[in-house]
């Protein structure tokens, strides 16, 4: 069939004459004021959000700023503080060194000060990937022993000549917080690896014990472990044997940290493809060699950001030793609140503590985010 088709019906969608020129499109990038206006007031919803946010800021910021800075007393006495009516930062400047060193004997303060300097140098070195080599681990172990020896005046019960012994009851402030978290991490690391490997072991008893351990620790609050360390562990010891209270808390903290680190490592182990294990087996490597040379290096590396995050959590959790009366930074600061000459400046003390913890944790978390991009598989060969 060959029906004739009207030509105009066939091409009805084709324009028969030239259309008028369109205006050229507006510049793709609007000018800055226009862009700002669109971002903050572009739609009614956005405008409402902006206004509400500004209102909240206008309501909270000026009183806070005038309290914290304008009317604040930076140097002076409690009486001057009360007169000025603002924040009493003079209290913090008065108690600053106490919050660093605690009750450590005054004439011996050079020892914790040296420890802080060594520690700061080691941390600075450790953040540089240039120094990420085996020697760094040995250096840390040596430094931890030196730190401990310098603080207490003895290493493993052997007194160091020339250093007066200082009982751990007198340790306090930043030093105890640093010891709890850094020793906690250093010891928890190997135990965590063992627990993580145990949890993935083919041997049922090893696996059951690891799972029971990890799940028990993660299932109860840290306070119960600290209570166990404080009240029950002394009962478990043979009569006459006493372990120092700080060390008991430290051990509880290590075991706690180990369970959480173990779960981080387990995540890393699970992420290693099966081919890696098979490849190792085809090379004739045994279990220990497979883990040591093939699996763990990869598993530990991919979990570094998670490790830092866990460490931040542990660092914050060191404050819980307050409940069993160990003088870490926060407890020391709170004990300063009881000074009868400086009553009523709790808010300032808490804000100072919050500032210190925030700076430490935020720095670590930014560092971990940087590591995450630096260590991502696309960038690391």
């Amino acid at each position, binding site marked *: 069939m060959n029906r004739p088709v009207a030509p105009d019906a066939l091409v009805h969608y084709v324009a028969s004459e030239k259309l008028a020129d369109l205006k050229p499109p507006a510049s793709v990038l609007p000018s800055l004021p226009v862009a700002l206006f669109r971002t903050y007031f572009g739609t009614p919803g956005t405008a409402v*959000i902006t206004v509400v946010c500004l209102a909240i800021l206008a309501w909270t910021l000026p009183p806070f700023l005038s309290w914290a800075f304008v009317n604040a007393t930076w140097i002076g006495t409690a009486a001057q503080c009360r007169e000025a009516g603002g924040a009493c930062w003079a209290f913090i400047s008065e108690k600053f060194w106490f919050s660093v060193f605690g009750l450590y004997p005054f004439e011996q303060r050079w020892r914790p000060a040296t420890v802080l300097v060594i520690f700061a140098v080691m941390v600075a070195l450790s953040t540089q990937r240039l120094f990420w080599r085996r020697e760094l681990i040995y250096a840390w172990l040596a430094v931890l022993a030196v730190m401990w020896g310098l603080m207490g005046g003895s290493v493993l019960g052997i007194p160091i000549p020339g250093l007066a012994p200082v009982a751990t009851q007198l340790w306090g402030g930043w030093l105890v917080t640093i010891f709890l978290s850094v020793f906690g991490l250093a010891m928890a690391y190997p135990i965590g690896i063992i627990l993580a490997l145990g949890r993935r072991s083919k041997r049922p008893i090893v696996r059951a014990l690891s799972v029971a351990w990890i799940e028990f620790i993660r299932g109860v609050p840290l306070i119960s472990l600290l209570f166990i360390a404080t009240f029950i562990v002394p009962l478990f010891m043979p009569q006459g044997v006493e372990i120092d209270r700080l060390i008991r808390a430290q051990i509880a903290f290590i075991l706690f940290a180990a369970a959480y680190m173990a779960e981080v490592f387990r995540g890393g182990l699970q992420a290693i493809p099966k081919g890696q294990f098979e490849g190792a087996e085809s090379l004739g490597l045994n279990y220990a060699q497979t883990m040591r040379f093939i699996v763990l290096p990869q598993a530990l590396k991919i979990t570094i950001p998670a490790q830092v995050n866990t460490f931040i959590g542990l660092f914050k959790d060191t404050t819980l030793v307050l409940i069993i009366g160990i003088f870490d930074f*926060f407890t020391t600061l709170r004990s300063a609140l009881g000074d009868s000459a400086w009553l009523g400046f709790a808010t300032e003390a808490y804000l100072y503590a919050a500032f210190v913890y*925030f700076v430490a944790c935020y720095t670590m978390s930014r560092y971990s985010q940087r590591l995450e991009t630096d260590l991502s598989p696309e960038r690391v060969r």
Partner: protein
Amino acid sequence: MSTIETPPAAKTAFWNDPVKRGLALQSILVVFVLVVVWAAWNNMSANMVARGLIFGWDYLGRPANFAIGEGLIPFAPTDSYGRALFVGLLNTLRIAVVGIILATLLGVALGVMRLSSNPLLARLVSGYVEVVRNTPLLLQLFLWYAIINALPGPRQALPLGPGMFLSNRGLKVPWVEWSPALWPVIWALVAGIVGAFIAARALQRRREATGDAPPTLPIAAALIIGLPFLTLAAQGFPATLSVPVLQGFNFTGGIELSPEFVALLLGLVLYTAAFIAEIVRGGIVSVYKGQWEAARALGLPAPRIMRLVILPQALRVIIPPLTSQYLNLTKNSSLAVAIGYPELVHVSNTTMNQTGRAVEVILVFALVYLTISLLTSGFMNWYNGRVAIRER
């Protein structure tokens, strides 16, 4: 003709036989653990004898001789230690349940706000989240407690909303005055929840069979809210709402939430919400951009894109870490011991100080927390299995 002689299998030394080696290693481990436990138990018995204590649970039945500030069931100092611990457990559950609900609502809101296209809002929320996540919870609790204690007394209480007043005595909120006529309403609520659950399953089955989309959510909501409401209406609204009113130096009416409870709740909710916000944000961001574009290409309006396409996929990412946040909140409620809200650990601590029975008391509360943790993670694993991708 010679046959190939197979050499007699060399006898493998037992340390080279993986099976025997495994057995030996595990036996050593078992013996080691048993010896440690036995030694600890032995020492403990000797130490307890030396202190005139005998391991046992008889203390649970003895009168506690201390008062508990608040609780869901009445408690008098003449009641037993067992009941005291139970009151503490109920207080733990109270703070945990209320805290989890509020932290979820606030956390989801903050997580969505952090993704707002308005940079002012996004920055403010992210500043809040960073500050809260990077300071210790214990410190925040003390700060809230100090702030509440520094508030003016009831006469100058801060009005927070209709019938809600915050002062240094705590928070006053309106509350339904209890009457026996409310029992049927409670049963109606239970029936409504069960009915909604059954209806949802039936509708789900119908949807899978026929492909229609029956309005599950409105039907469920109607059942859960409607049934109690109808029961209430049928009885002619017997319940009266008791609203706090200032009378003299204090409020009458309503219920009072103690300063400790308010500080703990505030601290736990604000802290946990910051973590939940990050989880929610991460979950939404994790949904591939193409899903938004495809849903828009299908012509779905934005709210339905969120509800039907994005959220179901984001939930898979959100739920496992959310579970651990719920557990963290429950475990963190034990920090109340520092500010004096009488929950399980606080009551245990008092009991321990009075009876000297450290082992038995710590064992009780550790096991309670362990049970709560295992039950919650069991439930959440079950739920997670339901929302997981079903490969067909």
